[in-house]
């Protein structure tokens, strides 16, 4: 599968989905007015990846900000990952949050409570 590589902008995140390595990353700010337009291709790509995933998929989410409209799209991304996990493949989500950013930690915990995939909460301390 062709990887997805999208450069970040002030309103949309950097995305690197590498099917060959099984490593997916979303990083930066996700605050577009129309988040569906941005996330739909990612969700579609995951739908294809789901057909023949690697035995282990690692997902790194490292967001500084995201708006509520992105929050639903991110949930759609996680739902695809949940389906991959359910089909007996290893999936791990690393949810990064900046030091003291309790809101971002709580946001990760929200997803963790909704999605049946192992989450690891990782504080960035630099």
């Amino acid at each position, binding site marked *: 599968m062709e990887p997805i590589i999208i450069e970040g902008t*002030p*309103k949309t995140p950097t995305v690197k989905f590498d099917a060959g390595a099984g490593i997916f990353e979303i990083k930066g700010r996700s*605050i577009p*007015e*129309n*988040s*569906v337009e941005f996330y739909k291709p990612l969700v579609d790509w995951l739908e294809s990846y789901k057909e023949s995933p690697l035995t282990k998929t690692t997902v790194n989410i490292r967001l500084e*900000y995201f*708006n*509520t*409209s992105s*929050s*639903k799209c991110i*949930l759609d991304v996680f739902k695809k990952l949940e389906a991959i996990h359910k089909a007996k493949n290893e999936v791990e989500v690393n949810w990064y949050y*900046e030091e*003291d*950013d309790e*809101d971002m930690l*709580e946001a990760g915990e*929200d997803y963790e*409570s*909704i999605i049946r995939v192992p989450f690891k909460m990782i504080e960035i301390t630099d």
Partner: protein
Amino acid sequence: MSFNIESYYSGQSKENVILLYKGNVDSDVINHVLDSVEEKMVAVNDNPKLRKKVYNVLVESLQNLYHHVDRVPDDFEDQVEKYGLLVVSRVNGGYKIITGNFVQSENIEKLEEKIKRINRSSHEEIKELYKFILNHQRISAKGGGGLGLVDIARKTGNKLDYAFVQYNNNYSFFYLDILVNEEKEN
């Protein structure tokens, strides 16, 4: 008729206002406002935690305007597609963000009920409400997720102050008055 949009907040000290905008709320305006407020917060060295909360609340309040405003009354001076008001001021311990927009009379009750529901909820209940909406409600045709106000209440830990000021029989102007301050205990 002497309807004055600014009278609602003009009683507050003007010297603390760091940004005032009235007009069409489009994507470029949102970008500009976010950049400008972020720069100002960095310049006065606000702590990152407060800065992030203010930024988040600004994004949600502006995008609420972007997605949900009703069209302006026919006789209003500024005939733009998405008319909104935004006032950001510095207050003791944080920031005050006031937004304003026209609401058609028949939409008032629904909006007010939503705010009242949020305001009578505890922090835990707001968290649960957020998760429920996140998991069960689709993104509307207008592009909003229905989560904006819940998110604002959750992140600030404060009640949503608001007012509906009647413009004419068919329209009111809705003010939302949000306090974002430091070290909120749940």
